[in-house]
């Protein structure tokens, strides 16, 4: 099976996510840097305050990189149908999200697709923001700025 890093770019569809989180989204993530990658699960931390999972991704230079993706808290994901065993070590995933501002190989996961089944689940921990085509806007408000 090939492991391929996919193109970073604007999402083709409009996604709406409204959820709480314990931290400022835009302090950590840059809404102008959407990302889509494909890789294999190496670790899952099903823990508060946010679930993290890690995948190995082969970049354009053929080098394997370990990416960290943040999701919502466990209970929120469970309310949306995501279970602790919805993914497993070794599963191949297609993930879209928003890159971290610090330049690390980490991102906030917006959607996760299980390649084996095609199942797509939302995952963002975007604290009450609506994510639309890679941008964020505070739900129903503009001030204070979305965060």
């Amino acid at each position, binding site marked *: 099976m090939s492991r391929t890093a996919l193109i970073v770019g604007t999402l083709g569809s409009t996604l709406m996510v*409204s959820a*709480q989180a*314990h931290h400022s989204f835009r302090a950590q993530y840059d809404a102008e840097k959407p990302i889509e990658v494909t890789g294999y699960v190496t670790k899952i931390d099903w823990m*508060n305050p946010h679930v993290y999972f890690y995948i190995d991704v082969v970049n354009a230079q053929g080098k394997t990189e370990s990416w960290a993706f943040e999701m919502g808290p466990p209970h929120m994901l469970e309310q949306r149908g995501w279970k602790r065993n919805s993914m497993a070590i070794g599963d191949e995933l297609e993930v879209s999200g928003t890159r971290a501002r610090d330049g690390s190989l980490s991102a906030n996961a917006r959607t996760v697709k299980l390649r084996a089944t095609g199942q797509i689940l939302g995952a963002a921990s975007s604290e009450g923001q*609506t994510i639309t085509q890679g941008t964020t806007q*505070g739900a*129903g408000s503009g*001030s204070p700025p979305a965060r």
Partner: protein
Amino acid sequence: MASRSVRKRCAVAAVAAAAVAAAVLSLLPAGAQPAAEPGEPAAKPIPRNADGTVSFAGTKDDVGNWEGPPGTSLANNVSADALAPNRLNLPTNLSVADVPFQPWARELYDQRQATFTKDDPHTRCKPSGGARLFHTPYGFEILQLADAQEIMFLPVGSPHSWRVVHMDGRALPENPAPSWYGMSVGRWEGDTLVIDTVGFNERFWISREGVPHTAQLRTTERISRPRFEQLRYEITIDDPGAYTKPWSGGWNIPWSAGNEPFDYLCQDNNLDPARMVGPQE
């Protein structure tokens, strides 16, 4: 800039059921009950305790808690290129320009805003004193303990912390040791719970937006439940160390039906602070 595209995104957001519900709540004057349209179910009665005071809890048929909306603020951060304030903010909230900041406090507030609130102590799993508790993600519960003459605030999205309000008529202490939640005493004024608090430390932010304070802070909070699904929260900030005179702000908090407390410990795997770098340019 309040561009057309931004407004369009707001319009899209408004179709979300939660946002619509929040907007309806916020448009109501405090204390107002909406008139039911023909065929609509009657408004749910506001529950009461055995002693007749308003209950801030759910019922056996309607569990839930209060989920503090993250976009709300004590001061409306309105400028020429900003959109309207959050619709859950109280209509009496001041604009930032009218908040009686001392210069250093305004500078610190602006710095916290400019850095996208990256240094918020709450996100370091610190207890959230003042109004910051009422932003708590995943909701908070208010336990009214008649026998103990206490009211407890249990914020779910927290470091497993709680706040106590004494309802036994005691006076505020003269010189309390500084603490995260301070020392609180409460009383009822009609159906409004009024809480006076002193003795805060300086290690938290009063609100999510980064309102600063000093250990001289004294607060008076007024909490009421004008509708089953609405909590009205207002805080008066009296802090001569940071402000030239007392000022007030607050927001409405929607009932989050079905929300129940769950095991949440912020400290469990909090990887975020190191990555919260804010704007890099």
